[in-house]
């Protein structure tokens, strides 16, 4: 699917833009799976999943390098303009966000190893819930990206407030629990890191929504932003 309805006169140029969009979609799919696996590792206290997340992270890094090469090539050889220009520059930004998400997912997965050494925490269902929202955010924004739809992207962008609220609530409760029971301090710190990483992933999903909005409309999403509560 292309951003413009009409085809390029130079077929190879159109194909290069399509390939860039495809590569981004594949990268997004990989990152999504990485995040799902990382959260499953935490929730199920299953450190055997860590290796799978690590392996995918290497793939994601390689894909980001590929996207950069494609973008550089398009600028050097095709001098994209208008929608093509916005698409190319946004692809570069989105690939950076996806690479960061992959990195954060890897960090989350690493904590599964540490957490498996402690008894299960009552707060883990909160982490799971936060993780589910962030996965949904990422999934929806990547879907929107593949169809160049801005309404779902704006929805994702607005969901970020909920992620922040849930993250802050989780931190507060964790701190209270750690204060009451010093045995919870060590696993609690791991949980705090996981939650922080999830919150950051939510921010990257928001960035992707902003890049997609600019790609399609040529206007920044900030302009529509509601006043902060």
């Amino acid at each position: 699917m292309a951003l413009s309805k009409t085809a390029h006169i130079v077929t190879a140029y159109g194909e290069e833009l399509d390939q860039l969009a495809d590569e981004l979609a594949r990268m997004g799919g990989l990152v999504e799976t990485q995040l799902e696996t990382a959260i499953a590792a935490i929730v199920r206290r299953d450190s055997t999943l860590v290796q799978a997340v690590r392996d995918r992270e290497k793939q994601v890094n390689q894909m980001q390098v590929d996207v950069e090469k494609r973008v550089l090539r398009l600028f050097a050889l095709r001098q994209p303009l208008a929608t093509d220009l916005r698409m190319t520059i946004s692809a570069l930004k989105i690939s950076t966000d996806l690479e960061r998400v992959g990195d954060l997912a890897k960090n989350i997965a690493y904590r599964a190893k540490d957490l498996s050494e402690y008894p299960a925490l009552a707060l883990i269902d909160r982490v799971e819930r936060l993780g589910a929202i962030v996965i949904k955010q990422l999934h929806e924004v990547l879907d929107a990206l593949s169809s160049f739809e801005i309404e779902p992207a704006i929805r994702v962008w607005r969901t970020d407030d909920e992620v922040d609220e849930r993250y802050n609530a989780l931190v507060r409760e964790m701190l209270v629990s750690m204060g009451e029971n010093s045995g919870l301090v060590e696993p609690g710190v791991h949980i705090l890191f996981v939650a922080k990483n999830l919150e950051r992933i939510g921010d990257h999903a928001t960035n992707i929504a902003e890049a997609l909005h600019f790609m399609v409309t040529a206007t920044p999403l900030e302009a529509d932003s509601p006043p902060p509560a």
Partner: protein
Amino acid sequence: MPDNHPQAQIYDSHSGGERPIKVAARDVCVEYNGKQALNHVSIDIPDRSVTAFIGPSGCGKSTFLRCLNRMNDTIEGARVTGSLKIDGREVNDRAVDPVVLRASVGMVFQKPNPFPKSIYDNVAYGPRIHGLALSKNALDGIVETALRKAGLWEEVSDRLADPGTSLSGGQQQRLVIARAIAINPEVILMDEPCSALDPIATAKIEELIDELRENYCIIIVTHSMQQAARVSQKTAFFHMGNLVEFGPTEDIFTNPRDPRTQDYITGRFG
């Protein structure tokens, strides 16, 4: 109803801000032997800036350019209607002498066309026939100033008596620009001034255009989108005799409003 009006009016407010309007066209139509080449073009072109005209071959951009110095007068069967004002004066007014008009609206063509005369005489020709210099010294001054403004003086000051045609293509084009500015024009029209030049000569002309815009209203027709993007502050897109879109160059190349502009500049089938 032609589709030029809405866009032209939308952008009027844009252009009004910084620079005064130099050229104001309203409902300009051109037909060649009954065949419509330009449909009701209305546009306000700001002074002391570069405006680029882009569009496919036969879209009317050169036809419109030629209206500005009444070059269409010389074409049998050409009929120009509508209002076209430069500094508020109607170009097509019967009282306007095309020769005088062309002194204030200079033109640079695709292929450099120096006169078969010396470099000096190429530049001195206009000031002489328009009586701009009262003495040989004054004329020397005008020639030097024009050649300096055209960025050519350093390269030719020691061989002013050589024929203009002995210069390289890029130098000839700058000589022609020097010839145009020697008679203090108000507007400089350029019809694909770099299409016959190599990239270095092109860069020198573009640098020159960028300097000249401080003092002149420059209108350039170009087939190179990159050139339009590099040199102009405003861009007009013509298609099938219509002015489709006119706005700040940055907007045209990052976010064109009309799908026809979008398809043209991104190289798609329209």
